[in-house]
């Protein structure tokens, strides 16, 4: 069974300043298999957050549907196996880290004692063991992201939806979060990851979808998408003097010829898709 199914999702909003409607997402379809890490990419305003909100049942689609583990997203029980880290998380300033986790854990169905022991374990796991009893109002941006990750995990979800988990986090913290995401995958969780940190997406995701102006530009296995349609040639075992005669008789000289598909980076693919003119100008 797919963890997430988005089927021809279309959603538009009224512009408050006029009678116009802006189409945030148009005929979007994709599926996320269980245990996979799926990267949802796109520039600002491309419809990523709308898609996530529709998956979580926070928005009603104009057309199409979303489901989580086969249950329609509009049903509250479909979210019983979901952990969500919102973009730029903001939590109750007056609660401590552990109080927040206990509160949200209880809302997800845990007993107080269970929520507390799991909360303590998670805060330690995300590196907040020294800030367990500190008020969230005193947390830095990076700490907020970490406590956000912990709260997303408090009910032991099978599906994690992470919206910009590394926004505002320093490089060391971002590397830590990337490691955690990999660990979550190893635990068998399905992850839907929205991130502008493309190197992170490239490192951890199995599949990606790139959105632009509410439409799907491309989606699929990340390795397939990054392979170029051209081949490159690499010669090994040659010294500098032999390079001149290389072109004429490689095999006679005993060198080896390797042919491999060259690979572009996710940044290159992203720019090609969402800003093709900019890509050409750079060339």
């Amino acid at each position, binding site marked *: 069974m797919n963890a997430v199914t988005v089927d021809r999702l279309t959603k538009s*909003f009224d512009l408050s300043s006029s009678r116009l409607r802006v189409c945030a997402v148009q005929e979007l379809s994709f599926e996320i298999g269980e245990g996979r890490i799926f990267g949802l990419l796109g520039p600002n305003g491309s419809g990523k957050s709308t898609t996530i*909100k529709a998956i*979580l049942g*926070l*928005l*009603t689609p104009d057309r199409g549907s979303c489901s989580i583990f086969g249950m329609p997203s509009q049903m*509250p*029980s*479909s*979210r*019983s196996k*979901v952990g*969500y880290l*919102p973009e*730029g*998380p*903001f*939590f*109750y300033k*007056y609660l401590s880290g552990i109080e927040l986790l206990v*509160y*949200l854990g*209880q*809302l*997800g*169905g845990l*007993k*107080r004692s269970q929520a507390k022991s799991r909360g303590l374990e998670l805060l330690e796991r995300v590196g907040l063991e020294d800030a367990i009893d500190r008020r969230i109002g005193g947390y830095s941006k990076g700490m907020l992201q970490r406590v956000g990750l912990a*709260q997303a995990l408090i*009910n032991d979800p099978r599906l994690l*939806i992470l919206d910009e988990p590394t926004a505002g986090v320093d490089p060391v913290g971002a590397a830590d979060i990337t490691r955690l995401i990999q660990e979550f995958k190893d635990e068998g969780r399905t992850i839907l990851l929205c991130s502008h940190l493309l190197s992170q997406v490239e490192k951890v995701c199995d599949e990606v979808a790139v959105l632009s102006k509410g439409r799907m530009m491309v989606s699929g296995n990340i390795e397939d998408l990054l392979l170029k349609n051209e081949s490159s040639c690499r010669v090994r075992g040659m010294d500098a003097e032999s390079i001149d005669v290389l072109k004429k008789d490689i095999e006679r000289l005993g060198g080896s010829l390797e042919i491999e598909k060259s690979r572009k980076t996710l940044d290159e693919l992203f720019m090609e898709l969402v800003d093709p003119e900019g890509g050409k100008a750079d060339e």
Partner: protein
Amino acid sequence: MSCLWSLWIRKGEKRMNKVSFGGEWSVRRAYLVGRNTFLEAVRLKLFYALMLMSLFALGSSFLLKEFNFGSSELKFIADFGFGGLTFFGSVMAVVLTAQLFFGELEHRTAITLLAKPMRRSEFIVGKFLGVGLGLFCFVAAILSSLVLALWVRETSLAALYPESFGDGFGIRYFDLLGFGILQVIRLAMLSSLVMLFASYATSSLFSIVMGMMVWLIGQLQYLASSSIGQIESAFVGGLLKVLSLMIPNFHLFDLGDRIALGEVIVAADFLWIAAYGSLYSLFYISLAALSFRYREL
């Protein structure tokens, strides 16, 4: 102070954990949201500012008792207490409800909560319960102070003028308790109305302005209702009657004057007014839950 609140609500939580929650609508989740909303309410400076202002109004009655324009001193003190309770309580009901509801939307904490397997109606009911508990604490604090002030003054006056208190004390303290319960219901009713506006409004200011307007209209509604009978057109009269039913009659809850004058309020009156306020609150909260269900976050 916060620790005391926390201890108090922790006891309630233990009781809630023992309840078996069948079906999808969870009383426990509504309770948890209510508990957190209450904690947020009692951490707001506004809560204490309005409470202090109300106490100040009560305290000022002692300073201004020389200007009582012929009414008895005890009634003068009671009027100030009831006035402060009603006015500042209503302001608190309107502002607290709007602030605590929109705080969750503006800071997007509502999204974190509603991404859990939680129904939107549970969220609305939880917010209402939390605000209601805050209002209950406000009324309890002000009413206790009023009772204390009246008792101290009545005791001292009885010692000074025993002939005037020959039949015992004039204030019916038990009725004050009933009055307090009715004020909590009245403020909860106002809060449920503001919750209805907030469930679809895009700004807290709109909800506050609408809440204040409805409070004023509801306070004066009885005047309009009494003149509806004089309208000749049956259609216009009927329409106005329906419109007047949409906004509750807040004046019904103004029993302070009658209590201060020593009038006996029969239990049936108390019960009828309590049922009236509770039904209106239930109606508005149901509408708010329905409206919030379709709101896009």
